[in-house]
């Protein structure tokens, strides 16, 4: 997934996210789309997103203690946090990523 923000406009936050999906399964597709929209709503932030398809590399998921998909890990900034589900709750996503005040 691409990086939707312009790095020249970065203020103070950059995120490294890892999205675990299961191929083209419905909730996985929804999670991808929700994350894309979410990132687009913060044009001043930098989101580096790595997508892992557990159908082809489940070992990565297992090693990262991901036991269901869709799931998303915030790797940096620390602490690492894992979300589960289709990421439709943008309010919770903003709160946990510490972006509430930026909305």
């Amino acid at each position, binding site marked *: 997934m691409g990086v939707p923000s312009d790095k020249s406009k970065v203020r103070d936050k950059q995120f490294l996210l890892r999205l675990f*999906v299961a191929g083209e399964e419905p909730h996985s597709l929804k999670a991808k789309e929700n994350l894309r929209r979410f990132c687009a709503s913060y044009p001043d932030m930098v989101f580096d997103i790595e997508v892992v398809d557990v*159908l082809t590399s489940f070992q990565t998921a297992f090693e990262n203690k*991901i036991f269901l998909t869709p799931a998303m890990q915030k790797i940096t900034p620390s602490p690492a946090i894992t979300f589960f589900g289709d990421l439709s709750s943008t309010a919770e996503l903003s709160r946990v990523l510490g972006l509430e005040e930026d909305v």
Partner: protein
Amino acid sequence: MGAQKPSYEELEARLAEAERALNAIRDGQVDVLIGEEGVYQVRLKNLEHALARRKALSKKLVELLEKERWEMASAVHDHAGQLLTALTIDLDSLKNELPPGPLMEKAFLVEKRASKLMGFLRHISRNLRPPALESLGLIPSIQRLGSGLNEQTGIEMQLYIKDIPARLHPDQELAIYRIVQESLNNVAKHANAEKVFLSLILRDGKIHVAVEDNGAGFERQEILNTFGSHKKSLGLRLMKERANQLGGDLWVDSKKGKGTAVLAEIPLNVAGGSEERLSESELEGLM
């Protein structure tokens, strides 16, 4: 070196993470589960939906079956029964007009056969729509089933009742009656038994039904096959369905040469569960 003890913050974060996972499962936002061995593709929401639909369809099936039985009983009792009664009256007057001889003997024979047929129709009608159930309640109706079994097969039924109220909810009475009826039918057909012991006991707010025979019994795998197969014994599956619908359960215990027991537990006070409603078109499809 031993593992470092997690801090309070770490534990709190793990707890929040587990809660988020549970919420995702609860909301049906899950595509696959991942384990040590690989990925298990589960559509939880679909599964839940399918189970709810199956439950609704099974309920409808039992209701339709019951409705059909009542309609058939009415047809047998009200129409065939009346026609047969008229036929008997006609035969009677015919007998009075006939001179003694072979024709008169023939009329007697036909009358005898009509009387037998009447008895047979009454038996069918009683099985389809137990008349005593509504007016007298469960226990007298079950006692009649026992007498019927004994008359037809010679199998002796022993009945043990403990703390069962004289009247139960009509749905419970009908379900338990049908469970016992089907169990006794199975005993008559398959068990090769001499005795059947039936107990109805109220314990811990549940009605415990047990129909045990001293017949041939069957192996565990045969029971599994019977319950697992769509082709085999719809009767057993319907019995289980009836118990399930009242918030209870039913199972069969048997061993080759050691007889068979049909056991059911049904809560005395039925709690209404959430049910998925079928659409009009699905209902029409069933009708």
